[in-house]
């Protein structure tokens, strides 16, 4: 059962991400990317990471993707790609080097020879256990992350402000 679900979700994730990088219109790409995100949330559930799966749906699908759709609709008029490709060798080289990268990563993981995982402890991946790890050992990074988000908000405000008389 778990295997069947894994292969279904993996096929969904790979298929929709391939559709995303080949799609013509940015809106279609964004909608297909939603499929990738939801498949990944399902995979997180299979890996006993319920809290992360919910965060994935809320933050990625709910906030980040909606922001993408807003910007795509804001720019829709000329947001396509020009007909001329300026770097001619880029396409074949990109494909070759990506395949080399894929081979390297797969070889590394296959060589590691990880066996079946141990059965998880009770309550693994719940909001409680993630929160305990977060506020126990990662309290300083947590505070730094809040400062980073504040910097992001300020950056967006400054960047989108129209330049006026100062």
């Amino acid at each position, binding site marked *: 059962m778990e295997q069947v679900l894994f292969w279904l979700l993996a096929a969904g994730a790979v298929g929709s991400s391939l559709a995303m990088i080949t*799609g013509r219109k940015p809106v279609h790409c964004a909608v297909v990317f939603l499929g990738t995100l939801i498949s990944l949330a399902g995979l997180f559930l299979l890996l006993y990471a319920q809290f992360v799966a919910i965060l994935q749906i809320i933050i990625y699908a709910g906030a980040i993707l909606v922001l993408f759709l807003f910007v795509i609709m804001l720019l829709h008029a000329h947001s396509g790609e020009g007909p001329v490709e300026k770097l001619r060798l880029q396409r074949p080289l*990109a494909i070759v080097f990506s395949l080399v990268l894929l081979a390297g990563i797969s070889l590394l993981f296959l060589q590691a020879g990880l066996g079946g995982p141990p059965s998880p402890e009770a309550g693994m991946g719940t909001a409680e256990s993630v929160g305990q*790890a977060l506020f126990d050992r990662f309290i300083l990074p947590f505070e730094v992350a809040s400062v980073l988000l504040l910097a992001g908000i300020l950056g967006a405000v400054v960047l989108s402000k129209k330049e006026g008389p100062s």
Partner: protein
Amino acid sequence: MTDYLVLSGVLFVIGTLGVLLRRNALIVFMSIELMLNAVNLAFVSFARQWGDMTGQVIVFFVLVVAAAEVVVGLAIIVNIFRTKETVDIDDIDLLRG
């Protein structure tokens, strides 16, 4: 468990291909998000393998960084579009407006 890790590698490479092949800045940006997600999948797989919550906590931080990155990056793209009327990254090759 190796299946999950190889899947995350495949998704990461699809993301790199998107960054290298596409010239629409928005789709390049979405491909970067895909790469971040692939790494998240690897972190969660390792957390499951060793029964350690650290992997899942790091995913939380990656989500925070991704959110901040998207906000600032999209603001930059909108600004570029305002001045250059294009989001094709091959047309944006000058360091001045």
